[in-house]
């Protein structure tokens, strides 16, 4: 692989060899010396008062090192888990932030809430001991039904949050929207439920904490998407360990999809307890725990109305949403249904007046936070569902109605009525390409053929916009974020010319080790096998913000570009000295510094060597060494867009929905590695299809029990549930980052639910059942919709 790669090449992944040979190193693979094992006792109740806990039998159980309860952590002044984004309500009042102790003190608030921690010499002994803890619960009424959580008389989740209302937030010009509706030629109304999802990264969360008594240093190996943020939160808010005494390492991580952004009780407790017992502690969730305690995603109920003029141009859009926070606020929970949702409700359209009201509610359920797409799938599902419904109501083809309302390519930068300024895009060619790839024109014939064999065929369109590449720190700060949103990079050349690329982003499947290397290879002309990408260790890598919100390439990649520019600038000074030329005459091409207009040249490796062995070196002008840092803070979000078209066939006898064709055409800006991008789109679509057709966290409304708590009842998409996908691209480069990239990680999951459901509704329209179906459109639900009287 001693080749130089270019941006845009389909380069095979550098990380694959270790994953394919079983030599990846995930947290649970670590073997720590004298390691103990933690097990957490979980609440079986959705809401109960803890009247007493007797841990004496557990403490006496074989191999037990320690048993901790909420009292122990409170006595030790362990801080509560925090929410890092302050949302101010429509009156400017910050959201309600009830306490979230790592171990419940006197009340448990969801099934799976942590009640006690047992540490023993083996995992089995820890679990045996946990079985012996006796908890005296006084079971209290629970509220899990989101539509009732804000009603008078609903059980209260927190005594200091009256009516379970976390915040009542709005965005947009209500008066302008009301005026638009007053003049509307047609109004389309819709009620949608955005079903609660459980992320289910295949690697369960895990933590392995070490404490060095000699130095007082802590090390946490954990399944994190953002180890520096974990360190920051644990140090500054929860445990009070000085930041420089806590090292957080996120090694190979088996998928995250948002669920591994957050700072959870278990990881926190392992660090704290390692110090307390003076031994290493390891904990790996079993899948049951993942179901109960990984932050869930989505979970909205919405009523919306869109106003149109006589030509089908959207004139006003009003949205009323209730969003579920779960029992406690997870790390970024508050931002998801507000700044990642409300601001995206313009979609790709010129709708001039939009007003959204979001009320966030506490319930006795697992906390809800960002899951692949985070807010944007909810917005897209709503916008694209109501647009297709409007098209049916006014008798216009849904593709045509979309085109009529698209923002024109000449209108960028485009200011929406919901705060964002879209930077670039060109939507018509995208939908045209998607229509071509899906043979949209030929659908009628296929629908007739299906009908002849007793099947219902439908086609659905979803044209999404997302705001990603999170984001300008000044903007997110003004909106309440507790952290900056830049990214860091360091290019650390070694004297022999190879380079380590240290990034504050974190790869847990996205392929950074390859794409980031490609950027460096392209930019600096260094062969791929001379480049190593390092991430995930707070003591190796400069402070970084991690990976979420499709930000790694747009922000982290741009930081790498910036660091590379610094390398080139420094290299020019060295090369000018070595070639006895003026710095202004030096150009850098294909990994070599040249004196412009001559054949004199110095390869980068030679400049690097000179920097480390500065015997002949401009030491008065340039420092030795070749090691540059950069921090990049973008000037705007990036705005990937695209259109997906899904075609389904429904068997009315059983209600089974088969996806017969799925097309996605995206504008991700410039593409570094098409192979990796396609993989991201495939995976996103699968999760979106999962939401549309099969996945749902089911709680028993009366008891708050999680009924879909294993793969026996939570339907994960499998290979035979999905087709192969047809992908296409149209590119408008991002105008404000050096790579011209927009981000691709979430697009599939954002657009797919609406594409699938619009297709399902289109199919069901043949029997008048199009308004009787909600996600997930399971066979039972589809059958019931068809047969409803």
């Amino acid at each position, binding site marked *: 692989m001693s080749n130089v790669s270019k941006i845009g090449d389909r380069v095979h992944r550098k990380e694959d060899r270790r994953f394919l040979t079983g030599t990846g190193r995930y947290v649970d693979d670590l073997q720590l010396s004298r390691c103990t094992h933690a097990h957490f006792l979980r609440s*079986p*109740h959705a809401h109960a008062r803890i009247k007493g806990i007797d841990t004496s039998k557990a403490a006496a159980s074989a191999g037990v090192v320690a048993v901790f309860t909420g009292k122990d952590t409170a006595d030790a002044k362990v801080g509560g888990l925090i929410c890092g984004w302050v949302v101010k309500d429509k009156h400017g009042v910050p959201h309600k932030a009830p306490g979230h102790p790592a171990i419940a003190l006197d009340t448990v608030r969801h099934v799976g809430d942590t009640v006690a921690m047992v540490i023993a010499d083996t995992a089995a002994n820890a679990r045996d001991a946990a079985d012996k803890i006796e908890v005296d619960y006084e079971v209290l009424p629970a509220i899990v039904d989101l539509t009732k959580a804000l009603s008078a008389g609903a059980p209260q989740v927190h005594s200091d949050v009256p009516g379970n209302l976390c915040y009542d937030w709005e965005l947009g010009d209500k008066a302008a929207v009301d005026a638009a509706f007053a003049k509307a030629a047609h109004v389309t109304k819709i009620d949608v439920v955005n079903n609660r999802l459980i992320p289910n990264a295949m690697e369960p969360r895990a933590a392995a904490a070490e404490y060095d008594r000699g130095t007082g240093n802590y090390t946490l190996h954990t399944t994190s998407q953002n180890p520096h943020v974990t360190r920051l939160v644990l140090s500054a808010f929860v445990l009070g360990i000085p930041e420089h005494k806590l090292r957080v390492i996120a090694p190979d991580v088996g998928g995250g999809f948002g669920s591994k952004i957050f700072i959870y009780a278990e990881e926190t407790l392992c660090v704290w307890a390692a110090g307390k017992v003076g031994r290493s502690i390891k904990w790996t969730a079993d899948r049951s725990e993942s179901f109960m305690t990984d932050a869930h995603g989505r979970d909205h109920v919405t009523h919306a109305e869109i106003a149109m003029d006589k030509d089908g141009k959207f004139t006003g859009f009003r949205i009323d949403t209730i969003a579920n926070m779960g029992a406690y606020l997870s790390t970024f929970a508050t931002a998801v249904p507000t700044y990642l949702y409300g601001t995206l409700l313009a979609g790709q359209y010129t709708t001039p007046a939009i007003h959204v009201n979001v009320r966030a509610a506490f319930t006795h359920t697992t906390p809800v936070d960002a899951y692949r797409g985070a807010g944007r799938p909810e917005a897209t599902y709503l916008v694209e569902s109501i647009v297709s419904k409007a098209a049916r109501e006014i008798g216009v083809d849904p593709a045509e109605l979309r085109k009529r309302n698209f923002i024109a390519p000449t209108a960028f930068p485009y200011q929406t009525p919901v705060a964002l300024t879209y930077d670039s895009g060109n939507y018509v060619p995208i939908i045209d390409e998607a229509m071509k790839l899906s043979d949209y024109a030929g659908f009628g014939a296929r629908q007739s053929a299906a009908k002849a064999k007793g099947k219902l065929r439908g086609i659905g369109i979803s044209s999404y916009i997302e705001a990603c590449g999170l984001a300008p720190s000044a903007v997110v700060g003004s909106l309440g974020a507790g952290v900056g949103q830049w990214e860091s990079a360091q290019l650390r050349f070694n004297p022999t010319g190879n380079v380590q690329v240290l990034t504050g982003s974190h790869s847990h499947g996205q392929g950074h080790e390859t794409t980031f290397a490609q950027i460096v290879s392209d930019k600096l002309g260094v062969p791929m096998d001379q480049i190593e990408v390092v991430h995930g260790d707070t003591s190796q890598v400069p402070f970084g913000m991690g990976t979420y919100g499709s930000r790694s390439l747009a922000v982290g990649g741009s930081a790498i570009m910036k660091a590379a520019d610094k390398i080139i600038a420094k290299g020019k000074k060295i090369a000018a000295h070595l070639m006895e030329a003026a710095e202004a005459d030096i150009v850098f091409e294909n990994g070599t510094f040249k004196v412009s207009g001559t054949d004199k040249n110095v390869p980068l490796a030679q400049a690097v060597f000179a920097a480390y062995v500065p015997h002949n070196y401009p030491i008065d002008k340039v420092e030795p060494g070749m090691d540059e840092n950069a921090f990049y803070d973008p000037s705007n979000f990036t705005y990937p867009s695209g259109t997906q078209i899904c075609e389904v066939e429904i068997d009315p006898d059983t209600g089974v929905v088969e996806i017969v064709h799925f097309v996605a055409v995206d504008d991700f800006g410039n593409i570094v590695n098409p192979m990796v991008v396609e993989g991201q789109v495939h995976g996103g679509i699968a999760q979106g299809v999962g939401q549309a057709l099969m996945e749902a966290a089911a709680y028993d409304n009366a008891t708050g029990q999680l009924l879909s708590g294993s793969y*026996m009842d939570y339907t994960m998409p499998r290979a035979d549930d999905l087709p192969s996908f047809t992908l296409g691209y149209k590119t408008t480069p991002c105008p404000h980052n050096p790579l011209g990239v927009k981000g691709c990680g979430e697009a599939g999951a954002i657009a797919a639910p609406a594409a699938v459901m619009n297709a399902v509704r289109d199919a069901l329209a043949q029997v008048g059942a199009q308004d009787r179906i909600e996600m997930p459109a399971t066979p039972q639900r589809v059958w019931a919709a068809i047969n409803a009287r």
Partner: protein
Amino acid sequence: MEFKGEYRIAAPQQKVWEALNDPVILQACIPGCETLEKTADNELKAQVRMRIGPVSAKFGGKVTLSDIDAPNGYRISGEGQGGPAGFAKGGAVVTLRTDGAETILNYVADAQVGGKIAQVGARLIDGTAKKLADEFFGKFAEVVGTPEVVEQSSVAAATSASAPSVPPTDFAKRGLQHWMVIGAGALILIVAWLSMR
């Protein structure tokens, strides 16, 4: 999950009421019931060793009687703890009324399970309830005799292959009859059993 039913019992109301309150009869009818004892006027304690398929565990249950209106009925509620398997709890309002020489028993019961059993065994919760109802019935039929069903409810019993010619509705009737026997305290034990899957 909610059950309700109405039964005609060929016994005077006072006798049925006494049966509803007789731990000896109840223990005899509950398979796997190792102990059932009165701990106070309105409280019973039970230990049940229960097996369903591969599942086998010991449950401890506590039963409370309230709203007592002898001999017309009461509310019974309670819960069983199955250790790491989770818990089960439930309640029933039982009412009796005389009809000639016989007694009409009505009940409205609800049962809930939680913890591991609810999380991994959702598909079997209802079925287990039905199975347990059947087991109670068989046992009680031996002990007390064969009462007559006047009306069906949502509870139905197993449609067993061993008697394929009997339509499901007949099984449903048989299943329902159990509840008369199970009456009060036993319901909670059933619930405790449910919690095993």
